[in-house]
């Protein structure tokens, strides 16, 4: 069975919304979807034999000094379709694409008890750089880690 990635457009935005409703206990606001749409190839839907089963959604942030870093807003795969390498494929896509675009930093927040997610990101070279207490309001534990990964800065840029 093939896995393929597709861009997010306003024509298929509802697919991402459906995924998020199933995956996360949070309602995302319009800004989330606007950010995802404007991030271009940094946000991808994953299709498993033509069924949309997962997505990675990113936001591009301009740092002081003008360089851009990538913030992974969500990454998720529907429960029946986990264990098929779809999450890996999505994250690898963002890592590869970031490298091509000379992005130097990728980061995300994760709830402190989400061991599986933490282990997953560590495998890709992410490290815990910070702990924010009371980051979440309605869920417990309310604390989160900041996981980030620095990409090798291309020589030309210095």
């Amino acid at each position, binding site marked *: *069975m093939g896995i393929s990635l597709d861009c997010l457009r*306003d*024509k*298929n935005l*509802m*697919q991402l*919304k*459906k*995924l998020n*409703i*199933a*995956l*996360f*206990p*949070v*309602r*995302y606001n319009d*800004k*989330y979807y606007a950010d995802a749409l404007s991030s271009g190839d940094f946000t991808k839907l994953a299709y*498993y*034999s*033509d*069924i*949309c*089963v997962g997505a990675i959604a990113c936001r591009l942030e301009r740092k002081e000094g003008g360089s851009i870093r990538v913030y*992974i*807003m*969500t*990454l*998720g*795969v*529907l*429960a*029946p*379709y*986990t*264990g*098929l*390498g*779809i*999450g*890996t494929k999505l994250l690898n896509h963002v890592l590869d694409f970031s490298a091509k675009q000379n992005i130097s930093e990728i980061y*995300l*927040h*994760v*709830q402190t008890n*989400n061991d*599986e*997610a933490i282990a*997953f*990101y560590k*495998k890709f070279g992410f490290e815990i750089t910070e702990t924010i207490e009371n*980051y*979440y*309001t*309605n*869920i417990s534990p309310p604390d*989160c880690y900041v996981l980030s990964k620095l990409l090798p800065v291309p020589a030309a840029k210095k």
Partner: protein
Amino acid sequence: MGSSLPPKEANLFKVIVKSYETKQYKKGLKAADAILKKFPEHGETLSMKGLTLNCLDRKSEAYELVRRGLKNDLKSHVCWHVYGLLYRSDREYREAIKCYRNALRIDPDNIEILRDLSLLQAQMRDLTGFVETRQQLLALKPNHRTNWIGFAVAHHLNSNCSKAIDILDAYEGTLEDDYPPENERCEHGEMLLYKVSLLEECGLLDRALEEMYKKEAKIVDKLAFKEQLVSILDKLDRVEDGEKLYRSLLLMNPDNYRYFVGLQKCLGLYSEIGQYTTEAINQLDVLYKSLAEQYSWSYAAKRIPLDFLEGEKFHHAADNYVRPLLTKGVPSLFSDLSPLYDHCGKADILEQLFVELETAVKSTGCFPGRDRKEPPSTLLWILFLLSQHYERRGQHDLALVKIDEAIKHTPTVIDLYSIKGRILKHAGDLVAAAALADEARSMDLADRYLNSECVLRMLEADQVGLADKTAVLFTKDGDQHNNLHDMQCMWYELASGESYFRQGDLGRALKKFLAVEKHYADMTEDQFDFHSYCLRKMTLRAYVSMLKFQDQLHSHSYFHSAATGAIRNEEANSSSMSKSGKRQHAKPVDLDPHGEKLLQVEHPLLEATKYLKLLQNNSSQSLETHILSFELNMRKQKVLLAFQAVKQLIKLDENSPDTHRCLIKFFHRISSLSAPVTDLEKLIWNVLEAERINISLLHGKSLVEVNKSFLEKHKDSLMHRVAAAEMLYLLEPDKKLEAIQLIQDTTNDTAPPNGALGPVGLWRLEDCISVHKLLEQVFHNPEATRSWKARCAEYFPYSTYFEGLKSSAVVGLANGNEYSVPENGDLNHQVVGGSTQNGNLHSFKDLAI
């Protein structure tokens, strides 16, 4: 032409003609005016000026000039020809033909006029005239290929096949041996195939066969050649040759069902009604096993055995058939299987099979007896299939359980929402169905099909405004009404018309129905260009079949719906008129967007009769046609015509409740008329007396007895009981309560096993709704109406009409869309999937922002 003019003006006249042909109308007008300055009453010039103005869209001037021209020069064929052209441009073909005929009387050998006339004759199906004209053309120009062919086609259309063959033979006689040249091989091949089809049509099969073998090398379309050949072999009972040929056709396309049927026929293994002996079934089984092996990529070879196999073998074959399709994920699988539900016993076997598959995949992740893990989507497709299965069996509750399970499993599959909408529609909740179709639409905004389905569901739920807004999303420029009309989008116009009709907006409804009627008129019109084009291009077989299609055009179901809609509309219109006198409409808007002008016809019933004629000519096999005819003619007091409708109904289906109603109503009405006075009335009376004896249903019985025996015969069927009750009330109004009791005493029995339906009541929702309306509007009994509604609300818990407990009318719309909050608060469950492999992670963040 222009002969009566001096040389200078004659030259100018040539300029007019030339300019007309090259569409340089301005230049033509100038030349015409120059002549008219000197000869203001010159007929041919006036005519040509008129024709030129017609092309510049100045219609009324055009007619005036052309007529004046003709009056000044009645002996000119030019003037007559121009008059004909003018009529033709306005699609007034009958008038145009008259003009051409007058022109030919003056100039009998004018090829141009003859050719124009022949086109009109073909269009109007004036076939004898067409033959004559074509003959003249051939006599005048025998060296033109088209003229030979045209003459042959004319004879063919005029049902003189053998003459057509003779002409084609003669034409071939004029050709050199090395004909055709390279660039005309296709055309010539088509002509040869056409000739063979003519030979076949008039039963000269041996000659047809001989012709085919002789000309094989010259026929370019090899597929058509083979299909034509095999059809002749079939008719000659040359089964061995036929079998060989069908097998070679299957090699070209192993999914063409007709080839399989043909092959079966050659092997003596075909039954029109699908009934086979055990022995035949075994033989077929062997045959299809070998075919499936030979054409391993053919789906037809695997699917067809499901039609003839039974019992255990069917179970096994169905199992083998659905498994790979479930693994692959084929949304249309159920549609593919659904004809099997009409075969006795197969629905039960399928149910057993699907449940087996579901249980196995749920517990082990594999199909029964396998140890290869299925992909996760397999369960989704099994649930999807099961849901449609239960829906087909009328078990809406179970169907909804399964579809919800599928949606929970994979909420991103759009088909799930469409099907859920369909289930709710059939369960009677049109509002919820529309909401689901809209949800499906929202998931892929670039999908026209989803958009259309949503519009249709909205119209069914009488949300016309919303539907229009949704439809606009897919039309150009947002000008949806004209655009949908231009695209001949008839399903939309019909659904919209029906919705307006339900809501009592007769004007708008009529407008929509008439729009559909207009499309059919346009389609008839559209064939005009093909009369010349097809003869030139030699696509003769396609041309003749197109003409045959056109002759049947108005029997198409869309036209049928539009015409019945229009008739009911006019009927309703005429009743509302008689109630309120002539209705005066306040605002005669110029464009009549609400169809108000359409309603202001003097005699709506007369309009209705027009559509009824078309129905009677084209849908004579439909009960509805004759029911409408009955109602209409009873209203118009046309006794004999109404009686004719009753006779037709009896002929089509004497057991139908509607037939019974019409029969009783008719003779009841007759008996209540006063004794005949005039000669005409006496005549009608005598006819009816004589005819009554011929109706076996009425033999020696009073109407009350007829009604009683009808009830006795069909006492277990709801709709028959209701018809009997309604007639009882009509015949004996004092027995009203007894009649109501008759309806109420009906039991909603469970469907017998082995059929398509599962263990559900046999009553149909739309029938129950019509009974409810009858109790309310005919019996005027609020108590019975109320209790009927309560009873049906239990049978149809999703029905909004009966306000069933599970319908959106009671529980509101269950919003499955983005605004609802997921009820599941269990975080970890949401976050982490089952296994610890690397894929299953869901990070979530951004909560505070």
